[in-house]
């Protein structure tokens, strides 16, 4: 009886996992989309809040980390931007757009690092 219950619970958990993941991704996407809209209006602080929320809701969502990195760059928070780009690239290593953003960011970051004698 117990083993049957256990098997049922496991089955239910496995069956509901993809839908839970889809829910999380859906909510994260909403936050990302809203973040894009406010960033386009110049409200970068609000965009950061939205993309941080998206990254919390779905920590496997590379787009949220990429956008966060861009926003941190815009705010001059270069260390945070690097960490966010690293995370985005770790989640989606083949994404050419993230790579392109990162390369552009590195140019600036290296210049600042050189200036600081780091």
């Amino acid at each position, binding site marked *: 009886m117990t083993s049957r219950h256990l098997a049922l619970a496991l089955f239910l958990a496995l069956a509901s996992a993809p839908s839970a993941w889809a829910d999380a991704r859906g909510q994260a996407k909403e936050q990302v989309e809203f973040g894009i809209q406010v*960033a386009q209006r110049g409200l970068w602080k609000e965009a950061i809040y939205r993309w941080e929320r998206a990254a919390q809701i779905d920590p496997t969502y590379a787009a949220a980390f990429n*956008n966060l990195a861009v926003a941190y760059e815009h705010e001059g928070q270069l260390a945070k931007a690097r960490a966010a780009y690293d995370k985005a690239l770790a989640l989606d290593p083949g994404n050419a757009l993230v790579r392109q953003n990162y390369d552009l960011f590195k140019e*600036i970051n290296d210049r600042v690092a050189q200036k600081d004698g780091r």
Partner: protein
Amino acid sequence: MTAWLRKTGASLTLMLVAWLAACSSYTEIPIETPIQPKLDTSAFQRIFIAGFIAGENEDVDANMETVRLLRSQLRNKGLMRVVDADTLPLLEVAKRASGDDDAPPVPDQQAAPAPQDPAKVVINDEKDLEQYQHVFANVAYWKRIGEEYQQPLIVTGAVLFAPQQRSGFVQREQESYDSFGRRMVVPVRTYMERKGFVLRPTFIFIDGRTGETLHTETFREEILYNATQQTPALSSYFELMDRLLPAFLNTLSAQKIKGTRTLLR
């Protein structure tokens, strides 16, 4: 009827474009990255571009051109009041005997004797510049200059602007047409003799109140042309200075670097 159809068609196309843009998985956005200045210049109300040690070049007086350019850039920026005074004769100061009150001591004259004739100064490379470097470390001298000009931030240093020649393989694009008359561009590696210039300025920022060096920055930029191309030295000088001016200005003030990034959905 035709006009109505055309109008409707145009509206539909616009709607389709808008819909496609909304559905697209990415969007480009302009950003401005603020870069903090390296030096805190809040204690200074004036800045004095004092002059630079530079070799004699037939076409370009690197000292005077650099002084003029930096002063005008700083005036345009309005960061501090730019002291408008004659440049300091740094080469002569560096060569003067250490017993003179006006002159900085020469710490290692045995190892690096300065040329005797001030009219014939040849500075072709970094080694030639080295023998004059001691002038920048003379705290008493710079403190006195600071007192003279109401304790400004002093900018001095050395500017090496020299011709250079290089030969080797370079990749260039060659245009060709196939049998159908289609234009093609193919990369071709060719051996080329090239000549140009190298610009290596060292900017030294000195506290006019104490005479001490606050910050030193060295840049290196070079430009090479096809050996047959005749480019005036002065225009090459300005092209090279243009490349490093933002970095120089960023030492004194915050700058925003404009760029474009891609946001993902």
